[in-house]
């Protein structure tokens, strides 16, 4: 697709259009940061009020799975940035390969998350009133799992959204829409994907590691 065909009527140059899209995307990312930020603030305060319970509860999480998932997500960020880079340098086949790799990583991440979730469901480590784990020595651990599920759940929804977006740019990449003159969609989806990664970078130590 030529650059002219992708220029909307109210812009005069492709650069102006790309800049506007980028500003729009970054503003959207900031709203995402603040949306998650509320949960982080809530977690910080509740953690300080129920230190013992949170400490005890986080032992129920599987550090190894958390670590593997972090590696998977960081790798997917790398493949994503390589996809953007390949689009910018007109390597169309590589764009497709890297996008596919990113999708696979995302799938692996969700697969592992699914294993973790089903384990928690089995044990009764559920949020709020559904918490039914037996044999706790420290009360109040349900609150940790409230946050665990809200934070990883919201994050998981963002992964799903990201996968849909990646699938969409993948389709366009296959169609041959992108070139060094026009690769904004890959670029923006990349930014979004990195933000999802960035949030996980904080979630991992907060939920799995901190004592």
């Amino acid at each position, binding site marked *: 697709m030529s650059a002219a065909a992708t220029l*909307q*009527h*109210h*812009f005069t140059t492709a650069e*102006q259009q790309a*800049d*506007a*899209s980028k*500003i*729009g995307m970054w*503003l*959207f990312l*900031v*709203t*995402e*940061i*603040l*949306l*998650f*930020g*509320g*949960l982080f*603030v*809530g977690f910080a*305060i*509740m953690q300080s*009020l*129920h230190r013992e319970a949170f400490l005890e509860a986080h032992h129920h999480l599987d550090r190894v799975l958390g670590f593997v998932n972090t590696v998977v997500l960081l790798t997917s960020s790398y493949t994503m940035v390589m996809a953007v880079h390949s689009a910018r340098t007109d390597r169309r086949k590589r764009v497709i390969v890297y996008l596919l790799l990113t999708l696979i990583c995302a799938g692996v991440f969700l697969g592992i998350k699914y294993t973790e979730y089903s384990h928690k469901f089995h044990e009764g480590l559920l*949020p*709020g*009133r*559904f918490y039914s784990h037996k044999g706790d020595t420290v009360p*109040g651990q*349900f*609150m940790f799992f*409230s*946050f665990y599920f*809200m934070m990883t759940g919201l994050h998981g929804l963002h992964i799903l959204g990201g996968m849909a977006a990646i699938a969409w740019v993948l389709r366009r990449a296959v169609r041959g829409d992108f070139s060094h003159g026009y690769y904004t969609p890959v670029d923006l989806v990349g930014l979004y994907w990195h933000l999802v990664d960035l949030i996980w970078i904080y979630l991992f130590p907060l939920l799995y590691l901190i004592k």
Partner: protein
Amino acid sequence: MSDNYLSSPRGIKSWLTTVDHKRIGVMYLASILFAFLLGGIFAILIRIELLKPGHNIMSADTYNRVFTLHGAIMIFLFIIPSIPAALGNFVLPLMLGAKDVAFPRLNLASYYIYVAGALLAIAAMVAGGVDTGWTFYTPYSTTTNGSVGLMTFAAFVLGFSSIFTGINFIATVHKLRAPGMGWFRMPLFVWGMYATAIIQVLATPVLGITLLLIIMERVFSVGIFNPQLGGDPILFQHFFWFYSHPAVYIMILPGMAIISEVIPCFSRKTIFGYKAIAYSSIAIAGVSFLVWGHHMFVSGQSPLANVIFSFLTFLVAIPSGVKVFNWIATMYKGSISLEAPMLYAISFLLLFAIGGLTGLFLGALATDVHLHDTYFVVAHFHFVMMGGTVMAFLAGLHFWWPKMFGRMYSEAWARVSAALIFVGFNVTFLTQFVLGSRGMPRRYYNYLDQFQPLHVFSTVGSWVLALGFLIMAGYLWASLRRPMDAPANPWGAVGLEWQTSSPPPEHNFEEVPLVTGGPYDYSTPEPDPAEVHA
């Protein structure tokens, strides 16, 4: 005149799928006016119920639902989208000399999200109602019956509509200014919208997560705001006001933005202190994030936080004061004519001054402790929101009405209506300052007999106010049925939006305008303000 945005392309479908910012603005305008009518009906019902103590026309439960809906509708469905999404959508690209906003499809999505949110809110009203107050304080909101979950979800959805408008405006201002229009040649309306958009983008997501947490609390009992489960209800208030205080500036900054357009135009004079007004908008946006705790002076928040927030609150008074003085100075040696938009602008000046000054009583700790959660607060925010934002909205509506619809309205009736609204408003709400000072708490269905005379006074005022709005509805409706004969520039204004025809063509300008001077070159002779500064 047939080739304008209203008539071409034709057909309902072309409206529902339009990405034209002007059409989206008009659809928003129709929707928010409907919301205003709905909220207004609830207001009148509240005032009738308060005519005498005890049961008049509704039960306490109904009353609680009615005042909740009045607040929620007026704030989320009317006042937040009123100026930015309706008027701003229409005029901001025109003022910048742009063909559209940066993301036209996002703009349409924002409108449909608004509609979806409104439908959800109406569904919540019908299915059980909501009796929490628009503030949704926990643990009341997490334990009461009714459709609180649905209502909070509606507000959550409406938040996205607001965020998308904000994102659109920021990108538009950055990237779509006409050739020659530097930052300091932008009209102050654009500066105001820009400051508003910053708050919309940065504050609304926190409201989003807060409302989601209420839903989670109701469904899962997650515990964060529930004291019985070890949570902290005061933390909820931090979350809520972290959005809702800046949201007050989402409401008032656009009002100030309109006044900065109307006063120079009807005074035929350059705005006084352009840069001071522009910077004060940004300053207000910045400081607005630091003052939310003044809603919590008696909540059980720590005394340290109270003192910090009280101090910061007084700082935010300064940029607002600066603006008022600049507007007055603009009128000095002007050529002032009192058409409807200017009448509303002057109403704004007087009422907003009262609203702002009574804010001092509420910012100071000792007096706030007495006045908090009384009718004094109710009166204060109605003076700012209605005396401020709504008056400015009406000024803007009358100012740009000919531009939007190509028709003039009856100036005589407009003056009658402006007078009734001004008088009715003051009778209704000045009284409430006295009620509050004397100790009448807000959200009271019943009250002590000693307060009755003032309540009667206030209720009668609300009828005068309603009459003013009915007349306005009448003459505006009548104007739409007249032939399209408004000139391109009925007020002799200088903004770019007046250089195109009324109503504008589909792509706004026949040719892209080239900006060579400042935005308010009313005075003669006309040197470039940029040069005067240099």
